[in-house]
């Protein structure tokens, strides 16, 4: 997929994702060793974006499995289309032997492919994104192990489907729950933290068209300051991008006390965080 770590970084940048050296190297390793990549980090630092960028810059199709509580194998792997099977049984000529009907209804025709099986069976290049894996129950993790280590799915009635072309697998997690050691062992691991001020400025310049360098710098600095306060929910990168866009729409070209107080709601989403930020930054005179 990629030739070297440096080239990976350049191509990701070409797809609009400014990766640091660690991210580029890890993505390159995951692609060249054909291992799944587990990405952890606070919400809104660009974990899902990374998968999209990899798909864009390699020209692959992105298959996404959004995880949630109660996700089971019939939603993740495959399901038998039992309504169609039922119809088939009812429509079978009465003289046909049961054995024959039985063999008929467990075939490709009656199989509903779900994201994991779909990604395995594709012959073109594919990026499989398993998003927010920490939201699922522990059983689903066990279900994933076969897919992640051998890139195959076993269907009891049909046999084993082995990937003809291994997809690039990216799992994301917000660490709501400690993932099992077995899953972690099979993956390469990348922790994406909030970016440094300089990187955040560059990302803002990249993602927010027409933003002035000074404003981007000020937003990055203010975001770093807000993150250093003990807040319930620190502003994420996605939120600081929103913030920069808001300021641009409002025609603000200099982030001062008034502008910050007026737009605090874009970055801080809890009432107690507002109170705290206003107190820490001495903005109480302007907030009323």
């Amino acid at each position, binding site marked *: 997929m990629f030739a070297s770590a440096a080239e990976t970084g350049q191509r990701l940048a070409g797809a609009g994702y400014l990766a640091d050296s660690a991210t580029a190297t890890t993505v390159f390793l995951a692609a060249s060793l054909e291992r799944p990549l587990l990405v952890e980090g606070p919400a809104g630092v660009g974990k899902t974006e990374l998968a999209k960028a990899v798909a864009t810059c390699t020209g692959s199709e992105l298959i996404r499995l959004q995880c949630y509580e109660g996700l089971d194998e019939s939603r993740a792997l495959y399901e038998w289309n039992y309504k169609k099977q039922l119809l088939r049984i009812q429509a079978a000529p009465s003289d046909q032997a049961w054995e024959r009907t039985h063999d008929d209804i467990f075939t490709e025709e009656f199989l509903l492919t779900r994201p994991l099986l779909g990604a395995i069976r594709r012959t073109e290049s594919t990026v499989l994104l398993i998003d927010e894996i920490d939201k699922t129950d522990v059983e689903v993790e066990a279900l994933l192990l076969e897919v992640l280590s051998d890139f195959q799915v076993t269907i009891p009635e049909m046999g084993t489907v082995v990937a003809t072309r291994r997809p690039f697998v990216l799992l994301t997690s917000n*660490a709501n*729950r400690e993932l099992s050691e077995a899953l972690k062992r099979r993956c390469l*691991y990348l922790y994406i933290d909030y970016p440094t001020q300089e990187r955040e400025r560059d990302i803002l310049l990249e993602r927010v068209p027409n933003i002035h360098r000074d404003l981007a710098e000020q937003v990055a600095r203010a975001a770093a300051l807000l993150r250093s306060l003990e807040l319930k929910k620190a502003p994420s990168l996605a939120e600081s991008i929103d913030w920069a866009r808001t300021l641009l729409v409002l025609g603000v070209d200099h982030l001062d006390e008034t502008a910050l107080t007026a737009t605090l709601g874009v970055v801080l989403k809890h009432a107690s965080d507002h109170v705290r930020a206003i107190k820490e930054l001495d903005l109480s005179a302007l907030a009323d």
Partner: protein
Amino acid sequence: MDLFDRHLDFVAALRRAGIQVSVAEDIDAANALGAIDMTDRDQLRAAYAAAAVKRPAHRPAFDTVFDLYFPALLDDAGSAAEEAAERATPGRQIYPGDPTLVQFREQLAQQLLAGDADGLAQLARVGVGRFGAVTGGAPGVQSWSAYITMARTSPDTLLAALLEQALLPDERGTMAERLMRQTFAARIAAFRRLVDTEVQRRLAAESGPDRVARTAVRPSAERLDLLHATNADLSAIRREVQPLARRLAARLAYDHRHGRRGKLDFRRTIRASLSSGGVPMQTHMRPRHPRKTDLVILCDVSDSVTSFARFTLMLVFALREQFSRVRVFAFVDDLDEVTRFFRPGVDIVEAVTRLDAEAKVRGWYGRTDYGRAFRLFEEMHSDAIAARTSLLVLGDARSNYGDPNVPALQRLAGRARRAYWLNPERRGAWDTGDSCASQVGRVMPMVECRNLSQLADFVRDVV
């Protein structure tokens, strides 16, 4: 020593530092080395981190060990000459007005202003060599100190001058100044880390990385001793506590949903069967009513357990957000209900400050008196404990030689469904001095809870 040996030593050092690297991960790391550009140190670091470090809490320890085993090359001719010059003048006294020091501080100010990471790294190398040398433990052995380097070069005192240069006159005293101050403080902190790394690099070059690695690696947040945690440690711990409480709550909810299923939901089953031609292929069950878990926490907030108390308050705070029915009581030698400070959505720092100022937890004596606290609790709040309540007592069981009033505690524990005592002291210190651990331990099980991983174990095994 070739690369393979270095790899083995490095992995062994990681394991000694408390990072569990499995054999499979070890092999992954070795494979990864073959794929990357080995001359790029950042890539090497990323490759090892991707294959071997799967928890963010382990990352600082990993970085320390990595810097020891794969130090940055001193490639330019300048640093070689610099090192030769250092060797020529060992043990020279440095005074505050020394011309080399003044010149160094000027360079440092420039780099801090520019925020140039490479420039700062270069200066950290020069600075440790020139100003951080101390006499080693044995004759002929050279040693370096990060503390002395930082004390002599004192970058903190440059802050005022930096702000002077970076700000326009009308920006003084505004938010812009705060933001710049924050930026420079972050750069100075980065310089401090670079100096630490440089000192360890030099020590490793002198006496081998194995020896330095044994002392240099700080325990990760989950293993930190809560009685001796610093403020910075506590904020790291706070970040870890939140997911722990969430996990605990999720676990309880999970058991409720999956433990026992309710009766058959006839109506929904029949409705669902319509889509399969009247054959009930899938049954639907009514959900069980989740059992409400009450939690009553009795928390010792005296000075001897200050940092533990702060930690437990964090935990209480996190639990309070997850459970609807938690009541919290704090005591020293007087007792007060402090649940009101922990309303969901309240800021934790503020809650702790208000608790210190407003809660009536200190009586005339001012030191822990378990006996009085339990008596007061029984008198005033015994209705808080019902048949379904779990009782959690947090404290070091040191009653300053007073009577711990075990019968009162026994009555409380008897009424609660479950009762546990979390003690932040190591088990070996129990029953020494004024500790009455085994006396109260007979009434309710006492669990050692010195760090986050022990707390996580408690959560897993007990709840």
